[in-house]
């Protein structure tokens, strides 16, 4: 199987990952029926897009799930979290039932939904029940036969219309942007101006758009090494068996997630540094015994997609990705015993540049994140890494075929996200 084919397989796997691992995430919540009954139980928590299209409910962990489409129920809510209500709205000229996320419940109500791969949509509901979508479309202006695009900011006018009984806010509305934070603020301000009796309800603190987490970690590695094409080169590298080597390394990970899109899938990169010692020996030619001592200081970069099971303190994780190993410093020697009828001559040759400078491959990690607190998350992972690299000019070797090195590593990592 050539490298290109393997890369294609890897890419295919990456693209299929969201489908492969799209699994349920039932969290405590309740459903409000059209008859205003409350059904307590568990509701499947997904991304913004799916939450607006369907509600999957079950009474308890073991019971069968039931699907509710918008309009079939009044709404549903995750305990101390998101609240969705059924609304019939006009989307691009078509009336459509959707579950809108209830952002602010006050004198005026603010709603939100987002389609997959689409911009967010916000709706303001006046106290008389009229619902308006807050839009900001692009328009073209022609000036001296040149067209310029500009933002129409229709939402500014709509907000002023919705909050017409509070002109003190107009200046603030002019500076309002079409995003959750800004719209929640203005809706809340409006409520506070016009209603002194009770506070408005902001249902959920929004998740950040992007979340970065760092994690230093220690790794214990067991590596098997070989030259995959050495056995037909008629050289000292032939018939050499390398022993599995174990060594520690240290690294740091950076995990990037988009919590508003998915709390389960994230992208993770890591850099790891360490030093290993590879030993191998073999008899080639027949009267010669060769021992290879190869010391390498390496820097490994890994990148890939990480899936984290979303609930519980102990959350299983899986990561698949690509890696690159850079050998920063290579020391190597071949110690040879040549046997001439019982007289042994020992000699030593430098083999500094035997392994390729860079090796590329894939890696697979399985692990557990322990959600000790919101800040600190210790973790343990077991990983497998396979990397290959070609070296066309190793020392004391002048054949035209490059020498291809292969590392296969099993590792255990222990670290802490913060």
């Amino acid at each position, binding site marked *: 199987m050539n490298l290109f084919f393997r890369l294609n397989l890897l890419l295919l796997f990456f693209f299929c990952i969201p489908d492969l691992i799209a699994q349920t995430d039932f969290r405590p919540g309740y459903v409000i029926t059209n008859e205003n009954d409350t059904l307590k139980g568990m509701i499947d928590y997904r991304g913004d897009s799916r939450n607006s299209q369907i509600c999957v409910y079950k009474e308890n962990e073991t019971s069968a799930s039931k699907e509710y489409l918008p309009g079939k129920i009044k709404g549903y809510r995750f305990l101390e979290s998101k609240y969705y209500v059924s609304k019939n709205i006009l989307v691009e000229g078509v009336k459509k039932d959707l579950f809108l996320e209830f952002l602010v419940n006050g004198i005026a109500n603010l709603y939100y939904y987002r389609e997959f791969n689409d911009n967010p949509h916000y709706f303001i509901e006046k106290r008389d029940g009229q619902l308006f979508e807050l839009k900001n479309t692009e328009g073209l202006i022609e000036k001296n036969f040149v067209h310029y695009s500009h933002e129409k900011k229709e939402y500014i006018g709509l907000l002023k219309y919705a909050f017409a009984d509070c002109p003190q806010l107009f200046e603030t509305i002019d500076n309002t942007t079409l995003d959750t934070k800004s719209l929640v603020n203005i809706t809340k301000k409006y409520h506070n101006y016009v209603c002194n009796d009770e506070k408005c309800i902001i249902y959920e603190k929004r998740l950040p758009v992007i979340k970065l987490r760092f994690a*230093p970690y220690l790794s214990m590695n067991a590596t098997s090494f070989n030259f995959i094409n050495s056995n037909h080169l008629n050289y000292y590298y032939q018939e050499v068996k390398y022993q599995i080597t174990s060594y520690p390394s*240290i690294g740091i990970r950076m995990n990037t997630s988009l919590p508003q899109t998915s709390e389960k899938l994230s992208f993770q990169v890591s850099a790891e540094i360490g030093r290993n010692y590879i030993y191998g020996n073999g008899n080639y030619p027949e009267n010669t015994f060769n021992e290879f001592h190869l010391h390498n200081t390496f820097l490994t970069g890994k990148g890939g997609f990480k899936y984290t099971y979303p609930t519980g303190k102990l959350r299983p994780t899986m990561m698949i990705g690509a890696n690159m190993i850079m050998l920063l410093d290579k020391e190597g020697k071949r110690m040879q015993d040549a046997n001439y009828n019982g*007289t042994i001559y020992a000699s030593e040759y430098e083999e500094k540049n035997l392994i390729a400078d860079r090796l590329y491959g894939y890696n697979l990690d399985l692990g557990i994140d322990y959600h000790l607190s919101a800040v600190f998350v210790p973790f343990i992972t077991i990983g497998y890494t396979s990397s290959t690299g070609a070296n066309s000019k190793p020392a004391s070797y002048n054949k035209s075929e490059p020498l291809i090195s292969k590392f296969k590593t099993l590792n255990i990592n222990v670290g802490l996200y913060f």
Partner: protein
Amino acid sequence: MLDYIFNIISGARRLKFLPYLVILVFSLSNCEKEKIATKEYPRIKTLDATDINEKGVSFRAEVVSGNVSQIKKHGFVWSQRDDPNLQNSDGTYIDELIENNSFQTRVDYNLVKDKIYFFRPFVITDNYTVYGKSVSFKSLGSNPPDITDFYPKNGKGLDTITITGDNFSSYAPDNGVLLNNLSLRLIECNKTKLRAVIPNNNTSGLFQIRVFVSYIETKSAEYFRLSE
């Protein structure tokens, strides 16, 4: 966005301990001793030459695998060629037993100043002669050869002279014996004794015996009476 930058900076501050961990990891990695395979013969490691001065040099070696008790003889060979052995170089056997898997000796002869030499240890068992790898050093000189006596005191062509002394080479080509301008044929040599045959000649007279070891010359105090 600024919040995230601050988060990254505060995160980086928490990583102050990382350099210490890196040092720890590299210390652990470097602790591992190099492996060596066990063979049916003892394997020896040549250590660098030490105490190099105008009086000689010290050689050292370690037995790194195999059973020391199977070693019958051991020593060092040295030469200006890079592959010294008992057949092509000067050498010395060590009488002392090997202790703590190492042996050493001081060589104070047959080393020319400012020349590059190669030396290697050897051990001899019933079935094998094993040489360690060849290691080079630059000589700062050594003691010259010394003639203490010779016999007979007189002779003629084809007679054999036995010369006793010290610092002769056990490798015949390193030695030279001259009588007047006659070059004697060496038939036996070691560090303390040379035996050489006078060539057929028609020279007579009293001559000092001249011995060269690697071009360093010494002369006998007494004279040899050469007759036709």
